[in-house]
């Protein structure tokens, strides 16, 4: 009687990881098509829309990049945290807080803005610092008190979302327009990220994201801090025995991760929305967790995975328009794809043997 047994592999080869990831990439659009076919929609039209929405047309391609940009920043930040085995589920709150800090900085300067090459770098820097500070609270709770960071970061998410909701209806609200809309005043042109692809929303944000990934690569694999982060993540006991301060590493990883998430929020608000809206809390922080996994928690993988996800989101919008289907279908597809990725990824780590 042949029974399948799942046994852990001795060494996870890079080839296995890549194969598995590739399968995940290919399977995902197939899932979308399958779901649509099940819903009775034509897969041909869907496939065409998917293609046009991702790489087939310039607007589609642009939208993919636009969606990928903040995702990439959040995901690369998570890579730092996850390498230290610090489970930062708070990227959502950190990016919201980053956007809040940007708004706080921008509002006093609505009338008389300084030139963009001054305002934008400062705003982005502040969003990074803001995200980092926001993450410092769960970081300290873990390193000083041993409180599980999963719960604390999730709590902080809701604190940020509620703060956002309060601010856009209160102190940050645009009082100059009639009626009471939950939004901040629109930022002047000086505060928008420069666009690099004409007639689109593609800004220097994507460059910032990719550069961040490269920097994180160097951080993790070429600097002592990155080394200690990886050591603590792989074997905190051995790291401690060798004199590494696990607390310092956990704090650093968490704060850097929060900072990058905050930066992601800043790039989002300065590049896409140009004002503070409740939609800032879009759930991107949770998606970033999955993107980081799909990228095998590696900077290079994250670049590809973010673009893939950005394309997925953009492609799904295109499909929605083409087939006149509601947005919930893409949410469903996304959910299925995520679970599928989680299942497929397992096979890189384990092998199936006949018992």
């Amino acid at each position, binding site marked *: 009687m042949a029974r399948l047994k799942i046994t852990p592999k*001795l060494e996870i080869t890079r080839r296995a990881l890549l194969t598995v990831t590739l399968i995940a990439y290919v399977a995902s659009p197939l899932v979308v098509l399958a779901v649509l076919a099940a819903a009775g929609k034509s897969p041909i039209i869907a496939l065409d829309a998917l293609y046009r929405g991702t790489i087939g047309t310039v607007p589609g391609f642009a939208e993919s990049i636009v969606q990928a940009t903040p995702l990439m920043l959040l995901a690369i930040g998570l890579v730092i945290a996850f390498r230290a085995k610090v489970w930062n589920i708070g990227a959502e709150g950190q990016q919201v807080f980053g956007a809040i800090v940007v708004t706080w900085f921008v509002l006093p300067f609505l009338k008389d803005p300084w030139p963009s090459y001054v305002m934008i770098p400062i705003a982005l820097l502040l969003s990074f610092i803001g995200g980092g500070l926001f993450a410092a609270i769960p970081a300290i709770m873990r390193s000083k008190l041993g409180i599980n960071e999963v719960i604390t970061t999730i709590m902080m998410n809701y604190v940020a979302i509620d703060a956002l909701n309060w601010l856009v209806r209160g102190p940050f609200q645009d009082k100059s327009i009639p009626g009471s809309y939950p939004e901040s005043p629109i930022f002047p042109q000086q505060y928008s990220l420069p666009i690099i692809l004409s007639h689109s929303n593609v800004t220097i944000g994507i460059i910032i994201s990719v550069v961040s990934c490269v920097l994180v690569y160097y951080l993790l694999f*070429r600097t002592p801090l990155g*080394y200690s982060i990886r050591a603590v993540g792989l*074997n905190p006991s*051995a790291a401690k*025995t*060798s004199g590494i301060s696990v607390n310092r590493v956990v704090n650093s990883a968490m704060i850097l991760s929060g900072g990058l998430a905050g930066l992601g929020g800043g790039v989002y608000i300065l590049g896409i929305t140009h004002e503070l809206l409740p939609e800032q809390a879009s759930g991107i922080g949770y998606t970033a967790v999955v993107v980081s996994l799909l990228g095998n928690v590696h900077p290079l993988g994250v670049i590809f995975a973010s673009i893939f996800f950005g394309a997925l989101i953009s492609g799904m919008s295109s499909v929605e328009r083409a087939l006149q289907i509601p947005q919930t279908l893409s949410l469903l597809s996304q959910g299925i794809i995520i679970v599928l990725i989680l299942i497929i990824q397992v096979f890189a780590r384990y092998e199936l043997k006949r018992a």
Partner: protein
Amino acid sequence: MRGIVKRFPGVIANDNVDFELRAGEIHGLLGENGAGKSTLMNVLYGFYHADEGTIDVFGKPALLRSPADAIKIGIGMVHQHLKLVSDMTVVENIILGLKSPKGFLTDVASAEKRISDLGEHHGLSVDPKAQIWQLSIGEKQRVEILKSLYRDARILILDEPTSVLAPSEVKGFFAALRNLKQTGIAIVLITHKLDEVMDITDRVTVLRKGRKITTQPTSSVDQQKLAQLMIGEEIPAMVAKSQTSADEVLLQIRHLRVFDDRGLEAVKDVSLEIRRGEILGVAGVSGNGQRELVQTTVGLRKPASGSITLHGGEITGKSTRSIIGFGVAYVPENRNEDGCVSDFGIDENLILKDFDKPPVCNTIGPQIPTFLNEKQIRSRAKQAIADFGIKATGPTAKARSLSGGNLQRLVLARELTGQPQLIVISQPTRGLDVAAAEYVRSLIVQQRNRGAAILLVDEDLAELVAVSDRLAVMYKGEIVGLLKPGQFRPEEIGLMMTGVKKMTLEA
């Protein structure tokens, strides 16, 4: 058991082994670490599945797919690492997994009674209501045995049961075993201790490197013969030690008091000193404070009171990092857990202590680290592999792929390079084969000859006696004996290890 073959990735743990057990006998299963004794018995217990071979129990072929099957036909096993749930009571641990007479409700009351009765009957009394974490190791072991007796075991497998007992406790333990034997229960005693085999077993089977060597009635062999069968080659001679004038005191521990993780006093009032060029061995049954002593010396634990000075300077309570900076090396007993990062390569493991300092890290000025220096890291790895004979596929081979002996070479390469003045070592040859152990011992003596002060904690008394210049014995957190060369008598040391004898030491 006939023709048992069990393979694990990269190694054949049991190579065509036959094993036969008779009712009412105590059968010793003897072999060195890694000989395959535990594996064989785990196969019998259904915990592992044999790749080949058959098992018959009580005359009938047995299909042992899991411990549940083994338990059903009357096999019980007490593992080396006790499988008890700390937070639950004795009763709860014993009735775990059994069908209750009250259906899906647990029947604690009647179980308590039965456990008390069983305990009294066999001389293994324990308070059923006690919680496991409150018990002593000896009592915990009794609970483990009661687990099997409660399930009407007719075959009892004991895996290195005396490794956690003090010599005096062993006497009582063996008496209980003899009692059990009388009731017709067959006992398999897995051990690597020759004296135990001679003491209590009726027959003995010797395993070496996964193969069965022989099965003999105990009466027809002696310790020497068993040792020969077990090791198969001559026991190597001791390493020659040069004369050193061990004058200067390097490490001084004064009235150290340390608490363990549970808040109990592990080190009560320990004062020791180690000179340059001297090996101070620390003997004792594990769990008498040696671990806490070692951890405090290297800064992994803070003492409650007392002081430790290195070369005159206070290091009490300082961080591990700064202590390492003073030239202290530490070879931990769990080399996989504490000594290296399995998923790092050899090169990355070698820089674990100084990854942010020159030469492996570039710096701005003397203090501010920038980037890792790949060239230096690689050359260090190549050097270490050459100097210490590490068998690996290359400098980037993952530590996970190294055998026990090679892993220890890696750890030693990291710790011993750089001329440390104090070396703290715990269980250096645990789990190593004879050749690897020999090499490790020679390295230790080499360092001593060079002038390092060495604190050596070792369960292997023979090794300790062979290598140490002076020998301290620890019992319940205190130094109960400090022996000079010429005073090392195993019987005396054994008595000290169990607290029977105590030397008066100069303050």
